[in-house]
């Protein structure tokens, strides 16, 4: 006896097995991101508005990423509809576009991460704070392209753009040099963790779609209905990833 309802839906529930399985999985993913979002809310409210940075993330880049992901959500469901309409070439086209959009999303995210990792804050012996991007670093000096600020609090808000000039900091005068990574403060910790986990899910989606586009698409010839179901549940996962971003983007970039 073979496992029934892998392709045809079961009459009384109206769904096939993989769809139930995927929605159950998405429910657990909702609780996973829920735990993280509730942590974010708690930590941010506890910090108080004056301690929370604003303007540290690029809204234009975030908006572009949001639109890319929204578009990919459309193309992924059109890929499924093409399968349902037995238009295999159309499926390949839309699925391929989905993969490309996801890769561009990850590329932009990677660029955003790199701007953070190369952005440094140096505390000097005399109490001044230098803030800027790393130009070069040697045994006796650290060179940043940025500015001096009087106290750390002022870094929490967008400042009127002073001219960013090259600052040379003698290594002997530098007390601490930290990059804008997750260890710097709670905002960055939350940002990297949430977007990092989301990015891993995007990557997972890319891997699955690449399989369904490439070697996995052989199933189309022998069992197109089963293949269509796989495309549908993969699409459901992708929509969930998009949903998470729909909340992540405003929560981190806009508020």
């Amino acid at each position, binding site marked *: *006896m*073979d*496992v*029934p*309802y*892998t*392709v*045809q839906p*079961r*009459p*009384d*529930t109206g*769904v*096939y*097995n*993989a769809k*139930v*399985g995927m929605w*159950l*999985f998405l*429910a*657990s*993913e909702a*609780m*996973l*991101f*829920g*735990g*993280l979002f*509730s*942590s974010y809310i*708690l*930590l941010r409210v*506890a*910090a108080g508005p004056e*301690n929370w940075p604003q303007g540290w993330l690029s809204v234009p880049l975030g908006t572009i990423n949001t639109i890319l992901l929204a578009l990919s959500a459309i193309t992924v469901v059109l890929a499924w509809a093409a399968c349902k309409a037995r238009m295999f070439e159309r499926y390949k086209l839309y699925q391929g576009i989905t993969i490309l959009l996801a890769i561009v999303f990850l590329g932009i995210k990677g660029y955003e991460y790199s701007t953070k990792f190369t952005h440094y804050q140096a505390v000097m012996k005399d109490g001044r704070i230098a803030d800027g991007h790393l130009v070069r670093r040697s045994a006796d000096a650290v060179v940043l392209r940025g500015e001096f600020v009087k106290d750390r609090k002022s870094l929490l808000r967008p400042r009127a753009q002073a001219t960013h000039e090259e600052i040379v900091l003698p290594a002997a005068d530098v007390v601490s040099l930290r990059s804008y*990574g*997750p*260890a*710097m*403060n*709670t905002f960055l*910790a939350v940002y*990297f*963790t949430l977007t990092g*986990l989301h990015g891993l899910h995007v990557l997972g989606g890319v891997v699955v779609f690449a399989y369904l586009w490439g070697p996995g698409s052989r199933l189309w010839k*022998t*069992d197109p*209905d*089963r293949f269509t179901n796989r495309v549908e549940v993969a699409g459901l996962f992708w929509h969930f990833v998009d949903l998470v971003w729909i909340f992540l983007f405003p929560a981190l970039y806009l508020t």
Partner: protein
Amino acid sequence: MQSTSTALGATTSARVQPHEEEAGFWSKYIFSVDHKVVGIQYGITSLLFLFFGFSLMIMMRWQIAHPGETVPLVGPLLASIFGDIASRGVISPDLYNAFGAMHGTIMIFLGVVPLAVGAYGNYLVPLQIGAPDMAFPRLNMLSYQFYFFGGVVMLASFFIPGGPAQAGWTSYSPLATSIPNHGQTFWLVGMVLIITSSLLGSVNIITTIIQLRAPGLTWMRLPFFVWAQFTASFLLLLAFPPLESAGILQLMDKVAGTSFFLPTGLAIGGQLANVSGGGSPLLWQHLFWFLAHPEVYVLILPAMGIVAEIIANNTRKPLWGYKSLVFSALMIGFISFLVWAHHMYLTGMGTRISAFFQTTTMIISIPSVVILTCLLISLWGASIRFNTPMLFALAFLPMFGIGGLTGLPLGFNASDIQLHDTYYVIGHFHYVVAPGTIFVLFAGIYYWFPKITGRQMNDYWGRIHFWASFLFMNVIFMPMFVQGLAGMLRRMSDGGHNYAQLKTGAAGALPQSALGLNHVILWAAVGLALAQIPFIINFFYSIRKGPRTSSDNPWESTTLEWQTPTPPGHGNFARPPVVYRGPYEYSVPGHRQDFFPQNEPE
């Protein structure tokens, strides 16, 4: 409901197993997708972990009764593995904490839950609902493999420098984060793997129950065991992810230097910690207990399911109050999400929120009592067969009763002030899990052994196993209530000697009688260990040499798993069974036998 073939033939449904002749050792026993093999894999692995966790406990009890003395027999081994923290074979406080943390973690996450849900759930659910396998056979195999690797990581942590995690199975930050070894990191990675296994498994069980019930098997004709597994799987599905998120955050704290759970101004060892601060230790507790409370219902629900099956079968009458049992199980599942902060009464929460959680905690005791009452009333007027599984199942009723009742003073925040973090808590939860769940897991092994192997376990030695275990379980855990009420705290590596009245002379210090009980408990633990020997021998001997069962249904049961060949082959049933009646049609008036299997036509 129609039969299952589709126009496109066999390729449209998931293939269960390659043909018998082609399958080699690896695909038949190691990489099998058959739910019965996966169930047995879970069973063997979890029993080994239970044994290992038990050994940790025996060493801890020695240290508690004889603080600072070399552990007999295994002292040199400890010294060679752990080095400094076990010098001269003495369990140092650090090592004691490590054993304590790993005992809890291993027993719960690597022992009881994989046995109750992974082994029993995987093996029996498809059989009891008349399905050929789980809905996702390959996912099933994968879920076992994740569990296995999670276990490997947890075990590996014993051998790294500095030893394993030491901050309790509850891993509270900042302690867990600031202990300067990698044990906690291994714990977190292990937990992520175990949680993944659990999620895949629960998706599988729930989908299987929803989608693969045989024709005629409506929801209210399901055996109570299936309802219990269904509810437990939902708890695992929705409650584990917040712990996973907390685990990710703590992993970031340990590895990436973040401060999710580290507050501003944290001082470690008298020095200001070099962290960004701004985190919250309470946040960890909320996220942890959001899982860990439903987790305890995952520990008990499958056990209640097994007890129900065994009692129905050995009383030869239907269970009393089937509908009440089902709705109570669902209510327990639902309410269990809303009680978690009763583990946090002493964190300084406000009175309103404490009252909320206290109320929900009291409410959840109601369905638990309903279930126990239904099972108890089921015994009324019954023709009870006192075989070994029934003995264990019957013992569950008073043992779980004690465990449950002793939970009440802990659930009220006023009395919890006195009892929180004392041995009373340890007594309470062990009563529920050890003479509670674990007894039932034993019962299930004796009960379903004939179906899995085609042979019977020896009933005489089973009774010896039962009575000895029953005696020693009670001698171990009953004194803990006394110790807890006297004020003995948990997790004290010296068994409380530093707080003894003899030592401090203070009025409220621990009386010598409380400390003396540590010796009683140690000997009872040794007795419990010895009591398992007949079981282990019986188990392995009977697999090869036990008397063959008289039929496919030696217990004369009504449920579907007994209406298969022994052991069930691939695909379980030759064609989907059709179900005509409920699961406990015993002693039906006028029927020629005292049981009426679910799938037997009129």
